């Protein structure tokens, strides 16, 4: 448990952890076949923590992320984001949660091609119905944070992949969310640009105190997190602290051969 408390403490914070997952199960059925993607996951992510989730294909890591992002329902167990339970959320409530408490960073950036960098950053708040005038200041701050102040008026097509991903990071921060979810954020970038984006994510965590969960299969990327959680066959298979890519690779290799 973290000792970090927000200024107005009691009012908003009922738990020091940003994410609490207990006995999470998810089964996909189609016709007569069904696949158990998550078989009972327990996971706690403290506020301000940067957690990487790794695992082979089909381990359930994407499913876990989609459930945490309120994009997918689950069958059993409980998930809390910032103390708010995700059980039985209807589409409307899930939409509000995604809008106000979650920030997404996608592998393919997913910026809207007809909007400028600045507009893309403002988008989540525009969706929430806030006036563009007020938002500009905040968007400019965020663009400065990700080092793209001079690119504010550019369209995504005029930006490099790394720049696009930085805009996407700025966008994910627009609503000051409880949890940032990054899905293979470096998967579509070359090593150097990818590394710069990861540096930025670390900054976002350490300087601004955001909670980040990143799904990746790149050990070097995962090593930038404070800890790395491994998934295999829908269960937590163990975890190692971040920092050393070799240790992660070893653990991963051992996991592959484990029976």
């Amino acid at each position: 448990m973290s000792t970090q408390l927000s200024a107005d403490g009691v009012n908003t914070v009922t738990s020091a952890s940003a994410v609490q997952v207990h006995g999470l199960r998810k089964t996909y059925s189609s016709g007569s076949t069904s696949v158990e993607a998550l078989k009972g996951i327990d996971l706690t992510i403290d506020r301000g923590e940067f957690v990487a989730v790794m695992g082979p294909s089909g381990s359930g890591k994407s499913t876990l992320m989609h459930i945490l992002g309120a994009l997918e329902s689950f069958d059993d167990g409980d998930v809390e984001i910032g103390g708010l339970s995700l059980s039985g959320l209807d589409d409307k409530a899930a939409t509000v949660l995604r809008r106000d408490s979650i920030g997404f960073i996608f592998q393919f950036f997913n910026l809207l091609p007809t909007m400028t960098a600045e507009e893309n950053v403002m988008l989540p708040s525009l969706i929430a119905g806030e006036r563009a005038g007020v938002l500009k200041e905040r968007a400019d701050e965020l663009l400065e944070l990700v080092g793209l102040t001079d690119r504010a008026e550019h369209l995504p097509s005029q930006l490099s992949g790394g720049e696009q991903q930085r805009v996407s990071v700025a966008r994910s921060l627009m609503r000051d969310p409880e949890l940032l979810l990054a899905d293979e954020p470096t998967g579509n970038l070359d090593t150097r640009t990818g590394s710069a984006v990861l540096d930025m994510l670390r900054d976002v965590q350490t300087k601004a105190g955001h909670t980040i969960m990143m799904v990746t299969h790149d050990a070097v990327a995962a090593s930038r997190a404070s800890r790395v959680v491994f998934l295999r066959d829908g269960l937590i298979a163990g975890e190692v602290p971040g920092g050393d890519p070799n240790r992660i690779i070893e653990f991963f290799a051992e996991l592959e051969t484990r029976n």
Partner: protein
Amino acid sequence: MIRSLAWRSVRARKGRAFLNAAGIVLGVALFFSVLSLSKTIVSTFDELFSSVYGDTDLIISGNEGVGTVEESVLDKVRSTKGVEETQSVVFAIMSLVKDDEVGGSQADQVFTNGVAPDSPELSGAEIVAGEDTLDGNQVQLDEGWANSNGLKPGDKAKFATPTGVHEFTVSAIFKIGKGLDFGGSGFGVINQDLARELFDSPTGFTEIDVALAPGADLETVRSELEKILPEGVEAKTPNDVADDINAQIQGFNIILYFFAAMSLFVGGFLILNSFNMTVAQRLREIGMLRTLGASRKIVRRMILVEALLLGIIGSLLGIVVGLLLTQLMVSLVASIGFPVGAVSYAPEAFIIAPILGVSATVFGALRPAIRASRIPPIQAVLTEHRAEPLKLKRRLTVGTVLVALGLAGVFTLASATSFPTPILLAGAFGVVFLFSGVIMIGPVIVPWLVRGESWPLRKTTQIEGRMAADNARANPIRTASTASGLMIGIALVAAIGSLGSSFIGSISDDLDKELKNDFTVQPKGFGQGGPTPTISAAAIGQIKDLPGAKDATGTRFLFLTSGYGKNYSAWSLDPSNYAEFANSEFVDADADEVFAKLAEGQVTVPEALAEGKKTKVGDTITLEGPRGSKKLTVAGIQTGSSFAAQSITMSDETWMSVYGIDGFTQILVLADDPDNPGPLEDQLRALVAAEYPTFEVLSNEEIKQQIQDQINQVFAIFYVIMLVAIIVSLLGVINTLLMNVFERTREIGVLRAIGSSRWQVRRIIIAESLLLTLAGAILGLLVGMALGYAFVKGIAASGQEVAFHPPIPAIVLVAILSVIFGVIAALLPARRAAKMNVIEAVSYE
């Protein structure tokens, strides 16, 4: 193998296939029903003439049925060699009076022949009930009409006649042919002596029916008769008469065919757009086939066979829908007072409509098929689809030339005074060129239009308006094509509307200037064509005697179908007092002088006719009537829009010497106190209702309203046809929106992932739909008004008095409809966007 691929493709994209087929279904249905409608009209008349004139070989009447024939003609006809029997007829329309109310509808009318009781029966009528007598007040009625009005032999029935209400006794019920249905109207026979009195027709015959002696040659007898008949009187076979009427409705048919063809054009255009999208969507699949070794020919054929399948299915369904639509159209036409009987389907419609449907489909798919076959295999597999690059300059140049040619063609048609095939083709191609030109220019201007339209949406919504506008502008060719599809239907509505409002507007403006009288007494439904009831001279006297009445005068009207004044009307007036009742305007002449000359037996000619015939004041024109052919001097060229001003006018004496019709068509009435005509109006209405129930009293405002209603009624059928075309193009909007949703799966997914509600996504699609339908509406209104303007200018150039008035009701209607249609078209695509699987949408490239 190609067929099976094509078939699978149809089945795999059921939704799109359904939309495409629906366009063809509606187009084919419309064409089918228009063909059947005109077939129904034609066979109504054929049936009528073959049964009503069962044993008649020749009909002797004034040129194409106008006026009456002098009685002396009858003896001459009887003594002609080869003529066996004759029957003379005095004709008028009577209306049934039920519970002291005169029925005004067509179903209340009885076409009544006054015949001599002892004359031979030359119609195909057969008495089925009662006694075959025609004494005194007896009337014989046809079976169908009598049944539907519950009349049997021995019953008493009141009818409104030209001289007032009269009570008859039904003596017999007869059956004509297979039982006739003439738009609900009935047929009746009364004693000729009574008819002379009741129909205010003391002299002459409306027609003389002739049966030939056995073995006599029709043509020989006809040429013998022509030698003894006065000029202006003709001997015709019943078939000739039917053919004349069919020739008259040919113009109406051509317009119907044109509109039906336009909606098939829209259907073909929908196919073109849709297959273009299908090809774009299937780039990878097609590229894959090509990499696997499929030739260009196979790709091309695959798409064309798919179109063929759709065309066949759509056309077959189209016939089924067409069978229903025909019923609707026939009842619509009947409701505007056109006589139509039982629906009869045109055999050729079963062949022509599907051939056109399949052709439109395959033709529409041609270019997309060629485009698909040109896709390089590797490119198709590797790259994402990009919108076609725009050749702006070429589009603008070619488009502008086409628009100019198109407007010129329309102007040529409208300014023509006769309509040979080249002129009709110039008009039809003019419209097609105009639309093609606008379709060419579309991608250049529509994005601007959309941007302009989206302004209020962008101002009032955070992202919906913005996203919608971006989506609509992302693929200018597709957006423009979709809007252009709508444009065609809406443009035709606006063009028809422009014609209507221009006629109505010009006529009301002129009537305000021309009418000086306070009330007009005229037949109910006057101006709708067909035989018109008349009113006797005695009625004029009665009206003059009413308290509050200052003066009254009678006029007579006749539509001319041949000779110098063909397609105009003849009008009789009293030159001594007509100036009190109307402001008549003449080119470079004073009305008093012209009227003085009318009293001496001269005539006036309407300006349009004079220009067409190059007639000048002082020229001699020949008018042919059943009373003979008269050479008459032109006293003046008349301008204006009232019925009289659009007619050849003459004094009562001149009228009788040419046409020989006694009864009056209109009585114009002046009140003592024009500022307070109320008391006179009440008296006048009471008098006319009681004694002349086939007539009605109209104020000047009511006359204008009536003309407006009549024009709108005639145009109603065109509006219905164009509505179908608009619905067809709406399917194009749905198609485009679905395609846009498909292409923007990822963007919509992102919006959902970062917190857009389903409603926000729906609103984006609805806004996009509105932008499309509004763009189509604006484009359509502009093009339609340009079309209407060219048409009105053309008509004005032909000499008719008409000025362009913008079609305000049509504009309002289109604006409201385009919003409603925009929302309807968005329903399915918006639902699909809102229900999208967010994870799939954002996770994969």
